[in-house]
């Protein structure tokens, strides 16, 4: 597998008038990686993509592709291909003409183009569909045509701007796998923009979590999920119960936190923040719903929380228990459905237990909007 061409963003600032869309972004994307920018809409991730593809000149800083500074180089001269959010397939061209548009620009003969289109159509599992118009294809098929069209240009870097957001759930899940496979097969760098953490986690080698123009954390999916470095990353990626409080005592990589409503609890400090947190700091502790277990009644300690169950629901793979702790603190618990019998606790008081490694402390900060 080829090493691929890396992309670097150096001190990248992008401003629109007074509005700062991207604030001092520094990212190194390894060649051949599947890299995702994950964030809510309006966080500046698409702006970064447009700066990489060349539709937008950064206000400050540099975009480097394969080590070459791209300043002043137009989108048609960059070794990138962009897959648009709405795909932007040319509506009046047949599928095969769409796919080989980049060859037509270079003056390739019709026969050559046809041959290449057939190869690519085979690759995306749409043989014999070349003579259709894009409007005659289904959403998933159009998706694949857009990918084939981008790949036909033989880019070093493929940029994808939320290409799956218009598809229904089943197709989206299918396309995730397919995209990842295509990426492994062609071995080029993919930069993927999404607000869907599921997409980012399943496909990416590395993920950058963005919030309001700022990159909060860059790490692989497992790290982002298990060891978030900011309150935003912790609350945006996956579900999390948040406990606000103050650090009472730091014990190496762990800390005791006095929560506002649930007493003193112990948790580990997230890796990025170790050594930076001290006693008295405002902090937030995150425990995922699936990290809780129901403990025997009466158990107390610094990793037990008592709460009363308000209602329960069955989601298929999990039972969700919605509880209310002291002072009306809402806590969600998910028990995996492994075929066990599940007795209802509605209206009862229960004790919840967690393991220290599953609770993480980060400095207090902005949470992701629900």
């Amino acid at each position, binding site marked *: 597998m080829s090493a691929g061409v890396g992309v670097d963003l150096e001190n990248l600032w992008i401003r629109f008038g007074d509005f700062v869309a991207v604030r001092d972004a520094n990212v190194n994307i390894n060649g051949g990686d599947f890299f995702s920018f994950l964030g809510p809409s309006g966080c500046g991730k698409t702006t970064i993509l447009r700066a990489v*593809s*060349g*539709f937008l000149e950064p206000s400050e800083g540099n975009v480097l592709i394969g080590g070459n500074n791209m300043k002043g180089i*137009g*989108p*048609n*001269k960059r070794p*990138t*291909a*962009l897959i*648009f959010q*709405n795909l*932007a397939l*040319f*509506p*009046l061209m047949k599928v095969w003409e769409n796919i080989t*548009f*980049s060859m*037509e*620009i*270079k003056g390739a003969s019709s026969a050559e183009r046809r041959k290449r289109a057939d190869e690519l159509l085979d690759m995306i599992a749409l043989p*014999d*569909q070349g*003579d*259709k118009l894009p409007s*005659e294809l289904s959403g998933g098929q159009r998706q694949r045509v857009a990918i084939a*069209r*981008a790949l036909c*240009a033989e880019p070093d870097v493929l940029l994808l701007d939320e290409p799956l957001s218009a598809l229904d759930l089943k197709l989206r899940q299918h396309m995730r796998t397919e995209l990842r496979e295509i990426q492994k097969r062609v071995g080029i760098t993919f930069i993927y923009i999404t607000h869907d953490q599921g997409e980012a986690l399943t496909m990416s080698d590395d993920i950058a979590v963005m919030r309001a123009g700022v990159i909060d954390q860059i790490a692989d999916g497992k790290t982002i999920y298990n060891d978030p470095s900011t309150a935003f990353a912790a609350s945006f990626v996956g579900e999390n119960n948040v406990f606000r409080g103050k650090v009472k005592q730091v014990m190496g990589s762990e800390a005791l936190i006095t929560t506002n409503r649930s007493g003193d609890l112990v948790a580990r400090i997230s890796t990025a923040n170790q050594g930076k947190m001290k006693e008295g700091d405002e902090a937030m502790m995150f425990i995922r719903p699936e990290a809780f277990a129901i403990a025997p009644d009466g158990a107390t300690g610094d990793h037990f929380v008592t709460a009363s169950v308000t209602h329960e629901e069955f989601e298929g793979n999990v039972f969700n228990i919605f509880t209310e702790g002291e002072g009306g603190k809402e806590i969600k618990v998910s028990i995996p459905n492994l075929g066990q019998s599940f007795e209802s606790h509605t209206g009862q008081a229960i004790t919840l237990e967690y393991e220290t490694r599953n609770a993480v402390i980060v400095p207090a900060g902005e949470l992701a909007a629900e």
Partner: protein
Amino acid sequence: MNTSFLRVSVWVYLAIFFAYLLGPLVIMSVTAFNSSEFPRATPWECLTFDWFSALFQDQRILNGIKNSLIIGLGTVVLSVAMGLAGALMLTQIWPKLRATYYTIIIAPILIPGVVLGISTLVFWDRINRFLGLGADSFLSNGIFLTVIGQSTFIASYCMLVLVARLQRYDVALTEAALDLGATHAQAFRKILLPFMRPAIASAAVLAFLASFENYNTTTFTFGEYPTLTIELAQKVRYGITPAISALAFIIVVLTVFFALLNEAGIKRKEVVAAARRQATVGEMTGKVRLPGFFTGNAAAVVLVVFAIATISVVGTATVYSPAQCIADVKEQKRLEAEKRIQELRKKREEQRKQREAEQAEQGEAQQSAPKPSNNSGFGNVFAPNTLSGEGEDDAPETDTDEQPSGGNGGFGGAFDPNSLQSPSD
């Protein structure tokens, strides 16, 4: 009860509306086939196609059509190009200026055509003089001036049509083309222009029609190249013949034909698209069986009927000769006129005798009294001889049942039976 009344009123309203809309066209079309010298539908004389041949022998009309076509094509090219440029500018311009820009570029539509005509003439005359060119230079050429003058406002119409389509254009398509390595020129030619093609075609048709029918701007700028509308206007001033109805009929027929053709084309595309959507992949690649041209396409059927009707009418026209009929009508008219003249003469004779008898009774004193007829204040204008050139058409109408009595004095001799003698003899 109430609803049925409402329904009937709607139909009545529709009937009146369409009669108002299409009635004049129908009547005018009918006059093109009547042998009467003046365009009218009644009284019907003879079916004739002679007005069409008269039309195609009229050099001024033919020349007018030629000039109109040349100017129309020039205007189409100039207006569509300017309209497209204006429309593109509108999408690119800084948003705060957009409303102002739009107003400015739409303004020519609101300015009266005569003003545009005069200003075009004055403006280019100044330029011509400024450049020190003579009166026969290119800049004072009638065709050039008319094309420029008409385009000032027709370009705005084109822009409106093109903007409507351009608003549906996804800029991401141009970006996608650029991203795939196309230059801006290539993206324009290969992506934007094909997308705009239907609107460009509409704008071109609109521009051509607007140019073809324009009168008030052209009337100042045509110079030595009168267009069809100018020629028609000049003809109307000196009296019209059904040859103009024939021309109008041809225009109506062509309009209906192209409207049907267009409609049939659209319907056909819809049918094909529907068929393609329904067909599975296997059917599409295997035996592609598209439904016939006529399936569910009423417009196509009408079109074919229309074409057959046209061919049969033209075929009839080539072999049909109304000469006998026209001769019959002439003869009939002559006989009718003669008959009436005889009657009138008789009446006059009787009256004369009566008068003589009265005069004889009343004696000499009455002899100096003025005679009632031929003594009006209009002098000789309505003297019998002035009617002699009007032709026999008027004879049956003017002599209806008027009596040459004293009550006719105000009309001079117009209704004097003698006035009928010269044409009918």
